[in-house]
């Protein structure tokens, strides 16, 4: 991606952006480490005001950008999985806060409780009223536990279903932001019917009479992701992943060890480009250079524009057309032949 290459320059002008640039470097980004250190030094010297380092700063910035472009040019499946899990990557609530106005969070499944790993509510995206739903991860240890690492229990899926039916009643498009390492595999989750909860969502979403736009913003693991993933448009952020199993678990099952996760990520074809090629999703939303966390503002802007465009298109279709096309799309997915 070459469109968003100005982020490092912005960081020179805007000190808070340093946090994003200096975010945890992933192992494949190590070549940037030294350059970033040099850049920091040059800036510090410049800031003292005695020596004009602006030329050096500009040069280093350019170098970092080029190097980054190089690193991000040909990412492997596993590298994208790493980006999708970057600790600084924007989560569902970050998008909601940045993209929508008047977000009113709605809680509970009206049965068992309120699942903190699945959030949702009413919101406005400019002049569009929407129902927005998504899995929520936490940033620090405490938050992660509170959000159950973004792994919903059955109540989460049932809350999502309740909100979708409400959206249908009041004729609002539904937006689902998918970011989960999977539905929670716990004892109580089984007791309360994790399988049934997800299954029912698949059925309800298939025939919901309002537009549904799903975006995988980070991790899209298995039934836990699909449980809010049946949409008229299913989109993936460029560096997100979506599959039937995580590369680690796939590696464990196929090769009896986590050590083959890179290979597993490759064979699973879980990246956005491969998912689009296999016609299992409808589109890819480009991320800023260095991933969504490297320039969140730009990412918010891109996603917002993409959502607005899709809402507009889908709202023009009648509900009957919408549902027929949705079912037809999923019915076509598969690879088989009819010869003995």
């Amino acid at each position: 991606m070459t469109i968003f290459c100005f982020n490092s320059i912005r960081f020179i002008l805007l000190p808070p952006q340093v946090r994003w640039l200096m975010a945890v470097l992933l192992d494949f980004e190590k070549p940037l480490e030294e350059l970033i250190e040099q850049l920091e030094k040059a800036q510090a010297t410049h800031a003292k005001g005695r020596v004009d380092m602006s030329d050096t700063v500009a040069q280093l910035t350019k170098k970092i950008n080029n190097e980054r472009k190089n690193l991000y040019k040909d990412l492997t499946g596993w590298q994208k999985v790493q980006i999708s899990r970057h600790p600084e990557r924007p989560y569902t609530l970050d998008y909601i806060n940045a993209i929508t106005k008047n977000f009113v969070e709605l809680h509970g499944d009206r049965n068992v409780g309120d699942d903190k790993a699945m959030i949702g509510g009413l919101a406005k995206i400019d002049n569009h009223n929407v129902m927005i739903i998504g899995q929520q991860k936490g940033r620090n240890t405490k938050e992660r536990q509170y959000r159950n690492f973004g792994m919903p229990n059955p109540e989460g899926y049932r809350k999502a279903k309740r909100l979708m039916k409400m959206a249908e009643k009041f004729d609002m498009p539904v937006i689902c932001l998918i970011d989960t390492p999977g539905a929670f595999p716990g004892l109580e989750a089984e007791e309360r019917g994790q399988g049934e909860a997800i299954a029912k969502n698949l059925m309800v979403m298939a025939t919901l009479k309002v537009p549904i736009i799903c975006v995988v913003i980070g991790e899209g693991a298995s039934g836990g992701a699909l449980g809010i993933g049946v949409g008229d448009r299913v989109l993936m952020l460029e560096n997100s992943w979506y599959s039937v199993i995580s590369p680690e678990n796939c590696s464990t099952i196929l090769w009896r060890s986590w050590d083959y996760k890179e290979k597993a990520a490759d064979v699973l074809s879980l990246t956005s480009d491969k998912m689009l090629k296999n016609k299992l999703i409808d589109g890819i939303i480009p991320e800023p250079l260095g991933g969504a966390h490297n320039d969140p503002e730009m990412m918010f802007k891109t996603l917002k524009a993409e959502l607005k465009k899709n809402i507009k298109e889908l709202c023009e279709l009648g509900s009957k057309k919408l549902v027929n096309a949705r079912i037809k799309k999923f019915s076509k997915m598969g690879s088989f032949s009819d010869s003995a």
Partner: protein
Amino acid sequence: MSWFKRVKHGILTKTQDKKPTPDGLWYKCKECKEPTSTKEFELNLWVCPKCNNHGRIGSREYFNILFDEGKFKELDANLTSGDPLKFEDTKPYPQRLESSKKKSGLNDAVRTAIGKINGLKVSMAVMDFAFIGGSMGSVVGEKISRAIDAAIEHKIPMIIISKSGGARMMEAAFSLMQMAKTSAKLALLDEAKIPYISILTDPTTGGITASFAMLGDINIAEPKALIGFAGPRIIKETIGKDLPEGFQRSEFLQEKGFLDFIVERKDLKDKLHEVLSIFGVHKRTA
């Protein structure tokens, strides 16, 4: 005839209609470890006569047990899987498919058919655990979808007998999307007000439980079948404790409210007929 006397009919197919089993072979029960002659085991519908453990059987056996005179019209028998991802683990996926076909004599992990249950016409899909653990790939999703289409077209009830370890990893996201696909078809069946009975047998886990297996108007199970979303091993690892006795078994699921009832294999056919009759299917499809 006295009111309490139930007449059993159509449950036992004639012995000569079944796959011949050589005399003198023994089946060792997985539960009680007691031996039974394979002949006796088969006559008892592959249920251990000593402890009532329901042995794992496949489409061939269920079609025989459930369809009148063991007769049915199979649908899409020749559908076979592609290899969309060029998937290779310890061996390439096409090789795995080939060896599974040879070993099981099946083309994939489900067979679908139209036949009659005590005179009532139904569309039925039965999963085969013998084919890559009954895992759901494109063929399973497509065949079940088409069987549902047939139920809608002919206005006949849909029955699915699930028996599966879940998704087929070798088809990755293609496999995942079969959950959405089959559930979408069931939503159409639902709108057409055609009954769907889901029968969960040992084992029914993963993506199967999280899609069509749990979506029946009536969900029923054979006794003591393992039924769950996450596998017991993963749950045990997650909570770091041993799982309670009977966890994720049919009886547990009924207690938790996810099954309408549990039925023994010998009663399955009559029970299905009973339920479908009360739904009034025979009148509507007459």
